[in-house]
């Protein structure tokens, strides 16, 4: 009975928080096309992106905590291991439903699996962004839609990779907004994509042209078109090393609609 009361109390809070964050949290991204840093053997080299909305910032600890409280099947002590690796999933929180003092509510949530991230977005009536959508928005800086050929842009991003991951993470929203109004695409966390499984990069970086027809039923693995774009290269390598139940301390997500 008490649990029912508690749930009833929580529901409006979640709905309110969800409602408030939900609408204010998304930014409209206009349709467009761009040249991906990845070389796809099909297509003409231009990737088209339909108009969509993307969350302004990555999902925070507080937001994910509200989700876990509303959907207790996603608590770290209840989620089936096939959906979220035990020992990793939300392992940094003090308890299954409590962040503890070591984690700030506004830090991006990490140690979440693809299934957990997908479930969160679905509960919002949303989904994870595709890699193409993510790369499209991530190409921007504060003033340009495509800043990728600017060495300064690359250096800034590579600077994040040089910082070790055991320093406290910054809360979301501290960085500048890019030209679309989206923040923290770089410098904070890796982010899940809906089609992470399409990142079929061979574990061995040198096998860029190896044509293993039986392995990939068709042409070979994805190759990098822009070999100087280390920022993107490393994201692709990261996504292709993961399985859907994995989580790491530098991996978070945001939703799209």
């Amino acid at each position, binding site marked *: 009975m008490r649990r029912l009361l508690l749930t009833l109390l929580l529901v409006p809070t979640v709905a309110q928080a969800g409602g408030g964050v939900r609408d204010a949290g998304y930014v409209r991204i206009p349709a467009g096309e761009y040249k991906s840093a990845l070389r796809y053997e*099909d297509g003409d080299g231009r990737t088209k992106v339909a108009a969509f909305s993307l969350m302004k910032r990555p999902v925070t600890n507080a937001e994910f905590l509200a989700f876990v409280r509303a959907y207790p099947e996603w608590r770290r002590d209840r989620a*089936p*291991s*096939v959906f979220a690796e*035990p020992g990793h999933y939300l392992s940094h929180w003090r308890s299954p439903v409590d962040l503890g003092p070591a984690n700030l509510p506004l830090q991006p949530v990490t140690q979440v699996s693809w299934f957990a991230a997908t479930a969160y977005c679905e509960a919002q009536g949303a989904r994870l962004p595709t890699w193409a959508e993510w790369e499209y928005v991530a190409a921007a800086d504060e003033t340009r839609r495509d800043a990728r050929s600017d060495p300064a842009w690359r250096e800034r991003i590579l600077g994040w990779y040089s910082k070790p991951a055991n320093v406290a993470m910054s809360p979301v929203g501290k960085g500048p907004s890019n030209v679309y109004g989206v923040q923290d695409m770089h410098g904070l966390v890796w982010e899940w994509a809906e089609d992470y*499984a399409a990142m079929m990069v061979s574990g061995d970086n040198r096998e860029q042209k190896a044509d293993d027809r039986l392995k990939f*039923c*068709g042409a070979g693995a994805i190759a990098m078109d822009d070999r100087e774009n280390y920022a993107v290269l490393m994201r692709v390598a990261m996504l292709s090393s993961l399985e859907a139940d994995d989580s790491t301390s530098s991996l978070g997500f945001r939703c799209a609609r």
Partner: protein
Amino acid sequence: MKSLLATAMLMLSGAVAAATPLPATSVLQLSSRFTDQDGKSFVLSDRRGHVQVVSMFYSSCKFVCPLLIDSGLGLDKALTAAERAKLRVLLISLDPARDTTAALNALATKRKLDRTRWTLARTDKDGVRKTAALLDVRYRQLADGEFNHTSGLILLDSEGRILTRTEKLGATPDPAFLAAVRKALKASK
């Protein structure tokens, strides 16, 4: 009172199977709905209780996917009749847009598949993504509608836990995989 209830439950062996939760590592926990080649709807947990060989394919695939069916048939042939009766084969389409129920039905007929044990199934795009994630199948749809995908046969025990997988395809089964199938069948009822 409680013990009477417990005893009553114990006597209903079928109910017991349904009541105990699936193991934490079972892929049958996926809640997505599937439709088989005969139009019947099911969820993966409906298939609990049988050892299964599972894979993902699409019917217009010209290269590997026919090989997948050949591999399944090769496995069938290598088993005894008693073993075969216990084995289920489930092939899930990556391409629900083109692999309609009718198309899957036609394929099952063309390849003369034993529908009492073979299932060709489709689900929605979301279900495809989640199934692939659970089975660690990587795939990408190409501009012309074809797919790049990793291929292999995955062996599940009767509770839906992944036992092993093989990427060696062909009418002659991978000996290590065949041995694993036999072992799993022996352990199941």
